[in-house]
């Protein structure tokens, strides 16, 4: 049995993970029905406006995910517990995924409505810069094989990158105001119909559940990764794998099933 298989056998899903997965799936299904069938088409934009129900949730999650990276990075530097680093890494990967989705969906929406794939709107530009900053974050995680080093370097990028976001947004906003371009359409006009708002809120909740579920999965993969390294190293170092885990003291790693 390989070290990875032994590690997988010892890291089992935490209670509630499966329930979270089903809740996310149900909420996403409900959100799909609401946004595709129940909510009316927009008075001006027609059917294409339904993209709002996926575009806005992905944008919200992108920022939420990077805020989690920021908090987890600070927590890691203060406590040096590798669980915070795993949380930051997992959330950063999801944040990059949702940021890329936000830009892609926004681009698909902008083409029919604004007549262009891209406009140098402050929110668009900030989101693009955000994607680049966190691609850098993920690249830093690949720079070194030493887990504590990787965690410390990544935490610094995770903190500094997040501090930069409001400054980037402000700078692009001021820059844009000098170039009077096409006026950006407000989402669904100045006011939004109650049924549309309800649909949007359901979609945001559903996507947030999906984020939490994916986060839980990614965290479990992270624990397996750490455990695999420990299992592979332990016979060479001659110490039990438990001692090689960063969180050896206090991490709720499930006890090894007997007889494996």
């Amino acid at each position: 049995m390989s070290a990875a298989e032994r590690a997988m056998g010892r890291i089992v899903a935490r209670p509630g993970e499966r329930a979270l997965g089903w809740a996310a799936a149900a909420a996403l299904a409900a959100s799909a029905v609401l946004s595709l069938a129940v909510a009316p088409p927009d008075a001006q934009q027609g059917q294409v406006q339904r993209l709002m129900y996926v575009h806005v949730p992905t944008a919200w999650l992108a920022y939420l995910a990077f805020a989690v990276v920021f908090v987890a990075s600070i927590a890691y530097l203060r406590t040096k517990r590798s669980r915070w680093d795993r949380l930051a890494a997992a959330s950063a990967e999801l944040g990059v995924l949702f940021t890329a989705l936000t830009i892609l969906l926004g681009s698909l929406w902008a083409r029919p409505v604004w007549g262009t794939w891209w406009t140098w709107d402050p929110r668009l530009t900030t989101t693009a810069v955000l994607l680049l900053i966190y691609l850098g974050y993920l690249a830093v995680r690949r720079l070194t094989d030493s887990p504590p080093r990787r965690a410390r370097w990544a935490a610094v990028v995770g903190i500094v990158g997040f501090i930069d976001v409001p400054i980037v947004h402000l700078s692009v906003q001021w820059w844009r105001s000098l170039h009077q371009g096409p006026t950006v359409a407000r989402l669904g006009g100045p006011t939004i119909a109650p049924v549309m708002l309800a649909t949007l809120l359901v979609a945001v909740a559903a996507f947030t559940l999906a984020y939490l579920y994916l986060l839980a999965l990614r965290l479990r993969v992270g624990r397996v990764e750490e455990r695999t390294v420990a299992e592979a190293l332990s016979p060479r170092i001659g110490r039990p794998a438990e001692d090689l885990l960063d969180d050896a003291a206090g991490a709720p790693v499930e006890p090894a099933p007997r007889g494996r």
Partner: protein
Amino acid sequence: MTTIRQAALVAGKDLRIQFRTRFGAAALLPFAATLLIAFGLSLGPGRALLREAAPGLLWLAVLFASVLSFGQAYGSEVEDGALEGLVLAPLERAAIFLGKAAAVAAELLLLEAVVIALVVALFGLSIGARPLDLAAALVLGTVGLAAVGSLFGLVVAAARRGEALLPLLVLPLAVPILVAGTRATAAAASGGAGSWLGLLLAFDAAFVAAGMLVFGFLLED
């Protein structure tokens, strides 16, 4: 010894290395000049377009050249275990950060003096109206850039194979400097650059403070 005094010692050491290796004159300046020529060629010979693009080209050249200087500033530290000596010296971590950043900033300011002259000559940038605004924008922008670069230069140098990563880390974070620096430079030719200078100042404050706080964590090995 105060933090400032310690930082001055580190900066002095770095500037002495830079002066003796002539890295600035031998590599940085020719690179910046090459960039400016390339920008000019890519935009074509139209005077009006070049004049309008001049502030942006100035800051692009500074930004790209600065990335080279950050790599260099820490390249010499990782050779022969010099970094261990620096870490073991009785210096505050924040002072090491400030010193490295100050040395890079000083080097970049010298470079910018030449780059400005080139941009004026090649692209017809006008600096007459408010030269003090332009100088303030360059100083503030350079400080912020040096703070970002001194933080990530260490990461990339310590990894020994991350040179390609440095621009990916520095350039997106430096977007506010590119925008505000360019706008302040353009505004210096016509009217006031006040609010842009304020933005640069905010960036400097955020990144110098963040750098002093987190730099020590990069040195723990």
